[in-house]
C-alpha cells in the first residue's frame, strides 16, 4: 500500500509536483492520468526512490522510501519510462541479472524466470539476444525483470507506450491477475481507454496537482459529462497535451 501526503518537487524554477496526496490500496489498480508534463513521472520517481521530494511524505507499506531505501526497493517492482535492455545479453540473462541484484537464490530465480516466460508469452525469444527485439518483446522483458522478485507493489510508467494491440491486451490481463492476487498496482498513462479498462481508482493530475480523483463513474458524475474523454478534458481544464 502506498500513502502519499502533500508531495512537492521543483527543478530550479519549475514546480513539477505541487502538493499531491493520494492512497493506492493493495488489491487495486490505481491510475495516474494526465497530459504529458503533468508531473506523473516525477511523482513515480519519488515513489521508487530515485528522486528525493522537497517536502511531503511517502509511505510504502509503512516505510519511508528515502529512509529505508533498500528495504522499500525490495518490495517494489518498477517498469520506468526507460526500459533499455542489454543487447549483448539474452532476454533470460537480462532478467537473471536483475534477479541476482535482488539477491535471489539461483534455484528460485530460474523457476521464477520459467514462470514469467509462460505468463508473459516469451517462450519464442527468451534465449535470444535482445538486439533487434520488437517494442513488444522489449516491454515484456522489462516487465519480467521488474517483477522477477515477486514484489508486493508494482509501479509502471506509461506501460503501453508503443505497444501493439495484442501485447497491450496481454499486459492488461497480467495486471488484472496481479490485482486479483492482492498486489498494489500503480500505473501512469495519458490514454483514457487504458484507465477505463483497468483502473479501480483514477487520479487525474494536471500541472503538478490533483485535478480530480475517484473511479470512472465518480469522475463522470463530478464533471457532468457522458464520456470519460469529455470528463478528462473538463477536469484538467485544457486539451493541451492530450493529442500527443
Amino acid at each position, binding site marked *: 500500500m502506498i500513502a502519499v501526503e502533500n508531495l512537492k518537487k521543483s527543478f530550479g524554477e519549475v514546480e513539477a509536483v505541487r502538493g499531491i496526496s493520494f492512497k493506492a490500496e493493495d488489491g487495486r489498480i490505481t491510475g495516474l492520468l494526465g497530459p504529458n508534463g503533468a508531473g506523473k513521472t516525477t511523482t513515480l520517481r519519488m515513489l*521508487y526512490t530515485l528522486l528525493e521530494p522537497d517536502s511531503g511524505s511517502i509511505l510504502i507499506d509503512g516505510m519511508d522510501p528515502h529512509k529505508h531505501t*533498500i528495504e522499500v526497493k525490495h518490495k517494489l517492482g518498477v517498469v520506468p*519510462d*526507460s*526500459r533499455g*535492455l542489454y543487447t*549483448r*545479453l539474452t532476454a533470460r540473462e537480462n532478467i537473471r541479472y536483475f534477479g541476482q*541484484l*535482488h539477491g535471489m537464490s539461483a534455484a528460485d530465480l530460474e523457476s521464477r524466470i520459467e514462470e514469467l516466460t509462460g505468463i508473459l508469452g516469451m517462450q519464442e525469444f527468451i534465449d535470444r539476444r535482445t538486439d533487434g527485439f520488437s517494442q513488444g518483446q522489449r516491454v515484456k522483458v522489462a516487465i519480467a525483470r521488474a517483477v522477477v522478485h515477486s514484489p508486493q507493489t508494482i509501479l509502471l510508467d506509461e506501460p503501453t507506450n508503443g505497444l501493439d494491440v495484442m501485447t497491450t491486451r496481454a499486459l492488461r490481463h497480467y495486471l488484472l491477475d496481479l490485482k486479483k492476487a492482492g498486489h498494489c498496482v500503480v500505473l501512469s498513462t495519458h490514454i483514457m481507454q487504458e484507465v477505463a479498462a483497468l483502473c479501480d481508482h483514477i487520479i487525474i493530475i494536471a500541472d503538478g496537482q490533483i485535478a480530480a480523483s475517484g473511479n470512472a463513474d465518480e469522475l463522470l458524475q463530478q464533471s457532468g459529462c457522458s464520456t470519460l474523454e469529455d470528463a478528462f478534458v473538463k477536469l484538467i481544464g485544457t486539451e493541451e497535451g492530450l493529442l500527443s
Partner: protein
Amino acid sequence: MSGWLTVFKKEVKENFRDRRVIFTSLVIGPLFGPLLLIGMFSLMADKTSERMEEALELPVVGQQYAPNLINYLIQEGVEIKPAPNNPEAAVKAKDEDVVLRIPADFSERWDAGQRAIVEVIVDESRNHVGVTSQRLRRLLNAYSSQIGILRLQLRGVSPQILNPIMVKTIDQSTPTSRAARLLSFLPYILMIGAFVGGMHLAIDATAGEKERHSLEPLLINPVPRWQIMAGKLMATSFFAGLSVFLTVIAFRLLVPFLPADLLGTSISITNPMLLGILVVILPMAILASAFLTILASFAKSFREANSYMGLVTLIPMLPSFYLMINPVKAETWMMAVPLLSQNVLIHELIRGEQVSISWYLIAGGTTLGLGLVLAAIAATLYNRPRVIFSGE
C-alpha cells in the same frame, strides 16, 4: 552473491561478447605498441647501417682545383660525381644530400701554406643527412690533419705539439642502459594500454547505460549505488589490467625481433624484469579506470564520451615528454607522482638497475590511493539525479 560481484560478472561477460571491444582492447591495443616500437627500431637501424655501409656518392664543384684531395676521397671509397649547376638549390630541393665545393683559389692558398677552404653544402635540418655529412667531414678532417702532420714533420716539429690534450672517453654505459634509451617509449605504450583497455567498458558502463536507457532500471534495484559503481569500476580495471598484461606478453614475444645487434646494443629483457614492470603498472589500471569512469559519467552519450577519450590518451604522454626534454635522475619524490613514477620505475627496470622495495611501495601506494579517491568520487556521482537523468 553480493551486488558488486553480480555487476562485475555481468559487465565482463557482456563486454567479452562484443567483438569490437575484444579486438580493440585485447588484440590491437596490446599488439600495436610493441609492433610500433619494433618497427621504429628496425627502421632506425636500417637507415643508420644503410648510410654507414653504402658508398658515399659525392657531387663535387671545382674538382680540378684540388686533384690530390679528390684522389684521397676516391681512395677512401667515395664516388665522385659531377656537381649540379646550382648546388644550393639542389640541396634545398632534396635532389642531393650533400655537395662539396672547392673554390677556385684553393690551390693558390694551398701552395702558399694558407688555410684552404672547402665548402660542404648540406641541409642539417634533414635528419638522415647527418650521417652522410658526418662521414664527409670525418674524411676531410682526416685528410687535413694528415697533411698538417706531414708539413710539421717536414719542418722538424713533432705533430704532438698540435694536440696538447688527447681526449679518451671511457664509456660507463652498459649495453642494457644504452638499449634502455631506445626503449624509453615503453612506459608510454604500457600506460596507453591501461587507458585504451579500460576505455570502452568505462563508456559502456556509464554513458552507454544512459544512452540505451538502462541506467534508471538498474539503479532501482536494491543494491547500494556505490556497489553498482564498484562492480563497474572493477570490470573496467579488469579490462585495463588485462590489456596491459597482454601488452607485456606481446612485448615479450616480440623482443627476439628487435634488431638489437644493428644498434650495437644487446637488450636482455628478462622475465623478472617484465614481472616488475607489471607490478609497477597494474595500480595504474585502477587509476585509469576510475578517471575514465568519472569522465564518461558526465557524458550523455557514447559519442560525447568518445570525444573526451581522444584527449585522455594524451595524459600518459606528459611524463614521457617531461623526461625526454628534462632527463633527470630518479629520485624518491618522483615515486609519489602517479604516471611519472611508473615512467621512472620502468626506465630503471629496463636499465637493469636495482630498484628499492620502498620505491615500489610509494609508487604503488600513491597511484592506488589516488585511484581509490577517484573511485570514491565516481561512486557518489550516481547519487546525483542530474547525472542519472541527463540522458533524456
